[in-house]
């Protein structure tokens, strides 16, 4: 299945390109930069930093940037993946990265559905408590780990035991 993805014209085009591939690579990094750069201030606020700063305006600015970054990172990431789909699919590091991204997204979704986050007017109680704090810390840890594993996919590709047998 992944071998056939590699045969797609767009995958072959990217694999053989001089400029398109590094361009897509850069787009992936820009996407991650926007996502992580926007989400860390939010996560830190949730974790208890800057209590004097109201959450609503922070959220209004940073959430759309994070979502934009996520969309860019996913789009570019899918393109990078299809260029060498079988190799990445067989990589334990890549699989672990996908699990972490899924967990980070689930964490974000859970937070978004939480009453504290949905409340329009911020009250003393709305952002207090242990759960927003845990969600904020979990978000930073999960996204950072996903980024680290993403890098390790390239660095440890041929390392024994990190790729499933062909």
């Amino acid at each position: 299945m992944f071998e056939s993805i590699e045969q797609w014209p767009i995958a072959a085009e990217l694999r053989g390109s001089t400029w398109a591939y590094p361009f897509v690579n850069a787009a992936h990094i820009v996407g991650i930069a926007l996502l992580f750069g926007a989400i860390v201030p939010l996560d830190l606020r949730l974790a208890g930093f800057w209590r004097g700063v109201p959450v609503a305006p922070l959220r209004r600015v940073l959430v759309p940037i994070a979502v934009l970054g996520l969309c860019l990172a996913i789009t570019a990431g899918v393109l990078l993946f299809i260029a060498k789909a079988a190799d990445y699919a067989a990589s334990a590091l890549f699989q672990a990265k996908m699990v972490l991204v899924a967990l980070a997204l689930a964490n974000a979704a859970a937070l978004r559905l939480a009453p504290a986050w949905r409340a329009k007017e911020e009250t003393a109680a709305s952002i207090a408590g242990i759960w927003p704090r845990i969600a904020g810390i979990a978000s930073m840890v999960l996204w950072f780990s996903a980024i680290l594993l993403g890098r390790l996919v390239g660095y440890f590709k041929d390392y024994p035991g990190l790729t499933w047998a062909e």
Partner: protein
Amino acid sequence: MQRRDFLKVVLAGAGVTFLGTSAVHAHHGWAWATDEKFEITGTIITVKLGNPHGELTLDATGENKGEKWTIEIGQPWRNERAGLTKALLKTGTEVTILGKRAKDPKLKVAKAERVTIAGKNYDLYPERLGS
């Protein structure tokens, strides 16, 4: 309070970055390889060309006989510059690789600086081969 918060953030970030980088053993670039010249000859088992870099697997002959080696070659523009085409890299072809091997002895992986096929040299990194 605000200044203290900032300091805490910077310290936490620095700690995480240190943990991350100190654990990493580079694969991209050259840091993962030894500095000594390494030569290996074998017949091509598989060929994968393209970004982020091409890759051959070799059934080694000579002193490494019986070993299966993975050889990194260039990305498309580098192979093209060296004149190393897809037609030259056919399964079963005998090639000699001059380059750098991974430091980790368990890793049968090397990065090619020069590929020699039928007596002809294809220099991927002329600046590293020097004179």
